[in-house]
């Protein structure tokens, strides 16, 4: 790092620490040392401080030590001559900067609770979102580790021209990156530029307006720190592990527009600790030698039309983007984009018209690869506001294709169609719903493009099992109805097959190590009756995935002999898990919460926990932010259930598992369930009622408490007694 940059960074760091400390002194006076401080709804405290130092800042008073740490890290200013090595001091100053900024921002949350929206998307009167809460973080963070998002661009300031700003944002989106926006250049803010140019911003389009000042850079860096802790199994305080994890896995960089202030330099120096380089459009010194980042550390004077390309090159990122020949941008960054009422050109399905999508396998000679047909009126044939019925019939053939894979392939339609910019897809099967935006039609969108996307991407992702794909789209009512009929038959057959499949009928279960790249000492076992706890992978997925990629993350496990049907002990499973965990987990039960429960990486949809007083089990899903009768919120419980450890009484589960016949079998099954959040109860209402009936107790459904009955164990116990919940009569579970 050149002397100029390091000198500036160290000056900037001094300014920032001074500013933050001043704000801390004021807050201390105003609120007292015991005042709680935090970023909204997170179990990671102030995440940079927590991950680097292992220190939990929970109260204003806790900040005193951290400011001391900042002062220890802050080096002397660089002298003009006979200077001492300044790179390390500048990097340390950058770290002190982040510590200070985190505290500064947390005090801001205290002083101005509504300064940020604390939402996923901008609100009507405020576009600045602030730090991602754990809900957003979980949802988005996973994308950093499964490869859907290779990293993020932390943008400081903005190009002057809103068109240029939008184009750069689009280019970054096309590289599947998240775009975190901070601060301004001469009063111009990138997020505002995008809004002015009708670009949709928010987490859903990966264009995230974090905050209006440079101090919000900590929201971006803190996000990276949390990814390493939550998914990488990096322990708080293991600073080196965290930084190297991010250098190797999170391909992030800083993109700065316009003049670079001392404070920006301080933040840039901090980011280099994580291996995140800075790319600037301004004439500043460069730092080209490599080592802390993968390649260069600071690259400057990059023209706007080259800046994205340059940035990913400097970061060493290879983005494999399949070129789909359609007139619209395409990629995961556009998946979450919405088509608002005012932008809507037309819609199909979703109750407005008949809509259906289905995938079936055929013989090789029955499918002409690449064939895409559209029968009936297309976009160019209709006026805005004219809705059409739609059927999408995809026929595939392949030597390795099995009818078991059909639903898996079909499930891809949702995200693949959503990947198209300006098109929104909701639902599946015959409740699917497509909204087409005006902008898409202006750019020349045709229904044929949906066919092209499905053909191209199915080939790309499932090339191992299919050889031919043809897509038949129709917007003619009679034809659509024919497809609906065909589809209904297919669905029935599928559901029947799935419904008949049990842990007893299948000899082979599947391991899931999809989280291998980021989660420690944990292996999921997926059985026909126990979906992966993330809720995303069922037994069929495992089977298909193994077929597609025999050395991939899903491996067959011969379940072996069942030595205990109620706990669900299988010799084959134990052997596998024992080996896979290097002896850390010698035994695992498939159906018990109390005896050797399955471990979890941290990606569970919900957590089951024993309530000893109630002699029953509660389950809380990730979306529920309130208190639970266990005395812990989800975020705290997650700490007990995650981390690859067996903690009897705590276990990660999928929502779907709640209606499995194998649920808590060892503890007495569904009748042990005493509490779930209302939102979850609503979500699985139909199936849950059905299961209660099957258990011979239809009234059980109403006996299961929610937060409406209470959030303490005492309240719940009272309710259970009133209702005569069966758990109270069962033998003690603890």
């Amino acid at each position, binding site marked *: 790092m050149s002397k100029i940059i390091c000198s500036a960074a160290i000056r900037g760091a001094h300014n920032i620490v001074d500013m933050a400390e001043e704000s801390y002194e004021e807050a201390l006076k105003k609120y007292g040392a015991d005042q709680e401080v935090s970023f909204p709804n997170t179990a990671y405290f102030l995440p940079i401080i927590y991950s680097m130092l292992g220190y939990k800042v929970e109260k204003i008073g806790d900040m005193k030590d951290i400011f001391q740490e900042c002062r220890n890290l802050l080096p002397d200013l660089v002298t003009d*001559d006979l200077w001492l090595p300044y*790179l390390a001091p*500048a990097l340390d100053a950058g770290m002190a900067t982040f510590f200070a900024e985190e505290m500064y921002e947390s005090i801001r949350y205290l002083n101005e609770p509504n300064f940020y929206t604390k939402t996923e998307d901008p609100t009507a009167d405020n576009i600045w979102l602030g730090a991602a809460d754990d809900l957003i973080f979980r949802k988005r963070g996973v994308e950093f580790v499964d490869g859907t998002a290779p990293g993020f661009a932390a943008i400081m300031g903005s190009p002057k021209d809103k068109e240029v700003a939008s184009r750069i944002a689009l280019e970054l989106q096309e590289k599947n990156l998240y775009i975190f926006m901070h601060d301004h250049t001469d009063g111009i803010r990138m997020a505002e530029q995008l809004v002015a140019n009708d670009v949709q911003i928010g987490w859903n389009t990966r264009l995230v307006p974090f905050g209006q000042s440079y101090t919000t850079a900590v929201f971006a860096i803190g996000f990276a720190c949390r990814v390493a802790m939550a998914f990488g199994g990096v322990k708080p305080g293991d600073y080196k592990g*965290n930084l*190297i994890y991010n250098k190797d896995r999170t391909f992030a960089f800083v993109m700065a527009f316009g003049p670079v202030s001392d404070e920006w330099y301080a933040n840039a120096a901090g980011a280099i600790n994580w291996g995140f380089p800075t790319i600037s459009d301004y004439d500043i010194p460069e730092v080209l*030698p490599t080592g*802390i980042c993968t390649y260069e550390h600071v690259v400057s004077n990059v023209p706007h039309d080259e800046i994205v390309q340059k940035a990913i090159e400097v970061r060493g990122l290879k983005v494999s983007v399949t070129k789909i020949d359609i007139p619209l941008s395409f990629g995961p960054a556009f998946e979450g984009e919405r088509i608002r009422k005012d932008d809507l050109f037309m819609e199909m399905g979703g109750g407005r018209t008949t809509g259906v999508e289905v995938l079936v396998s055929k013989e090789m000679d029955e499918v002409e690869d690449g064939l895409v047909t559209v029968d009936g009126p297309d976009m160019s044939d209709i006026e805005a506001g004219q809705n059409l019925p739609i059927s999408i019939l995809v026929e595939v053939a392949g030597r390795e294709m099995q009818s078991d894979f059909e639903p898996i392939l079909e499930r891809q339609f949702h995200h693949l169609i959503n990947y198209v910019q300006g098109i929104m897809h909701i639902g599946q099967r015959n409740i699917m719903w497509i909204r087409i935006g005006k902008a898409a039609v202006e750019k020349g969108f045709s229904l044929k493009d949906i066919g092209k996307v499905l053909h191209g991407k199915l080939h790309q992702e499932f090339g191992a099992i299919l050889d031919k794909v043809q897509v038949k789209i129709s917007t003619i009512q009679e034809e659509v109805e024919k497809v609906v009929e065909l589809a209904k038959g297919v669905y029935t057959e599928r559901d029947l097959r799935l419904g008949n499949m049990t842990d007893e009928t299948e000899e082979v279960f599947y391991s899931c190590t999809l989280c291998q790249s980021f989660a420690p*000492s944990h292996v999921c076992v997926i059985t026909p009756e126990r979906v992966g706890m993330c809720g995303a992978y069922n037994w069929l997925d495992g089977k298909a995935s193994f077929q597609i990629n025999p050395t991939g*993350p899903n491996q067959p496990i011969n379940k072996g002999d069942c030595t205990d049907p109620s706990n669900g002990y299988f010799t084959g499973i134990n052997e596998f898990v024992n080996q896979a965990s*290097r002896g850390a987990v010698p035994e695992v039960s498939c159906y018990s919460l109390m005896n050797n429960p399955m471990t979890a990486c941290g990606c569970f949809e919900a957590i089951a926990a024993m309530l000893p007083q109630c002699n029953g089990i509660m389950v809380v899903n990730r979306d529920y932010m309130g208190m639970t009768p266990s005395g812990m919120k989800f975020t705290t419980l997650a700490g007990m259930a995650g981390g690859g450890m067996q903690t009897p009484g705590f276990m990660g589960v999928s929502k779907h598992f709640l209606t499995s016949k194998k649920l808590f079998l060892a503890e007495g099954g569904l009748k042990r369930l005493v509490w779930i959040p209302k939102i979850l109860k609503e979500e699985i209402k139909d199936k849950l009622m059905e299961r209660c009936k099957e258990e011979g107790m239809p009234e059980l459904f109403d006996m299961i408490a929610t937060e409406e009955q209470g959030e303490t164990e005492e309240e719940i116990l009272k309710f259970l007694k009133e209702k005569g919940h069966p758990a109270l009569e069962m033998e003690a579970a603890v």
Partner: protein
Amino acid sequence: MASSRNGCDSCPEITCISTKEVLQQDIAKNVVTAYDRVKRRGMTACLFGSGGTCCRHCNMGPCQIIDGVDDMLGICGATADTVAARNFGRICAAGTSAHTDHAREMVKGFIATAKGETPHEIKDVRKLHMLAEIFGVETEGRDKNEIAVEIGELALADFGSQDDKPLTMTKRAPAKRQELWKRLNIFPRGVDREVVEMMHRTHMGVDQEYHNIMLQASRCSLADGWGSSMLSTELTDIMFGTPVPRRAIVDLGCLKKDQVNITVHGHEPLLAEALCLAAQEEDMLGLAKKAGAKGINLAGVCCTGNEILMRRGIPVAAGFIQQEMALATGAVEAMVVDVQCVMQSVAEVAKNFHTDIITTNYRAKMPDSVHIQFEEETPLESAKEILTKAIANYKKRGDCFIPQETKVDVVVGFSHETINTMLGGTFRSSYRPLNDNIINGRIRGVGVIVGCDNYKLTDEAHEIIARHLIKNDVLVLTTGCAATALGRAGLVNPEAIKHAGPGLREVCETVGMPPVLHMGSCVDNSRILIAATEMVREGGLGDDISDLPAIGTAPLWMSEKAVAIGQYFVASGAQVVFQNLPTTGAKAFNNYLLEGMMDTYGAVWNVASEPLEIAKLMIERIDQKRKELGIDKQRERVLFDMEMRRDLGGDKAIGDAGCTGASHHES
């Protein structure tokens, strides 16, 4: 009267400005220096001595052996190769013994410090814990002094160990190197034992096979590098603080006209540290004031100078070759000496002035000096006694000349720990940036310039070599009197990057470091072993020290310690270049050192007499290693997709068994 003020006929011209200026002064006209004595002796060095074939190991001789002449074997029948090898082995033993006795004192001082018996303290607890791990000492919940006592006692036991267990520190060497030592059966055992065995095997009628003699010479020297020297460096760091970057000055100009000048000459920092502490005490300062001085100015000479320069930023007045010049200024009240590299002539020079030569170690006394024994149990008292004696001389100071212009700024303190931190900061400390920039060619390689200075080559030899190396993008590490010489040349200074090639300059600019890194005294060459090992460990530059694009030189070696250092470098896989070796009289043996050792150690001794030739040879070796590593060509930028990113550090996870990998990989 001195015969020449500009060197002499038999030795190269003096180029060092401060030396020249001082010697030209009237007050120095009666000072006789080594330069003068070279001339006065009027004879060239003995050819048998120079060629290594003079044997004085028994009373049948002395025998001068002429290689290839049957009638000129030793009386016992010893060949030139045997005799030269025995002599060489004994040089290694002598060098090792010097470092060993020094180290033993340090270890004993360390134990005494841990027991609270000295004014010093255990300063670097982090390093203490690092060593504790190496020595297998429990640290959990234990007091630092308790840990230190245990480490100190284990370290002390390493000197006298009688079993066949390798020295503790050798486990720090790269795995491949350790395997080699094991295969060759040269893992050093007890340090004293290796010196004794070397002496025994070179006694009349014992080891008479030069390859075999050199195995022991290697083992003995390794006991120095990975044994005594390393123990000394590490424990001294823990006790007096691991060096960190700091500013200081070198050259005679650091002497002060209005202060009591005390030069500390020799090697063991225990004495110097005690003097530093005592010189800050009120009573001593008061005494100085009373004598009319503004203060007490300590300045180092030789390696004691480097020890306190690195840890305290105390100036170095002179290297070995300038010890007489320091006195010739007439401005030194006392030269306090302990052990090693003190010329007997200093007492003679001092007679011209008010200066006292104060010997402090029972091992090292000389005529015409004052002896004040440095008592390790009462170091402060000893130091005060010495200071008092020196201060008393201040009033007696006559005319003096301090060459003010020759004060040169330096930035020093580049311990292994400093290098590790300065490349990535507190949170990302590692050698990665160094390796990376060697791999990408910005830095061509690492050149190590160490050792003494003498009168055989021009006194600017170190500078010529260093300039050529940095110009060609070779990063220079330096220790000992070589470092002082490079300091005087202005190269141990961050602004010297203007003399560096574009690649090295860019890296130095990035880090803010000089192109020449001062790593300490000659005993601190062990730091270079650790740095080299760390480069190997960091990856990308082979899996042994012998794979690194690195080479060392001691161009103006004088002391036997330099040969021991050279041999432990070679036996550790680091090639070295010296300006000559006392082995030329034995063709086969000489050839073994220069070529044959390559097969054994992956490194050899090189000999080149001219500084530029030395530098070019070093670069050749570096280029050859770059080629062997396949880093001699421009590389394509690798871009990483998700699969590749998963593989980064992914080798530590079980491939098909899920989330079972290490929670993260260490950097």
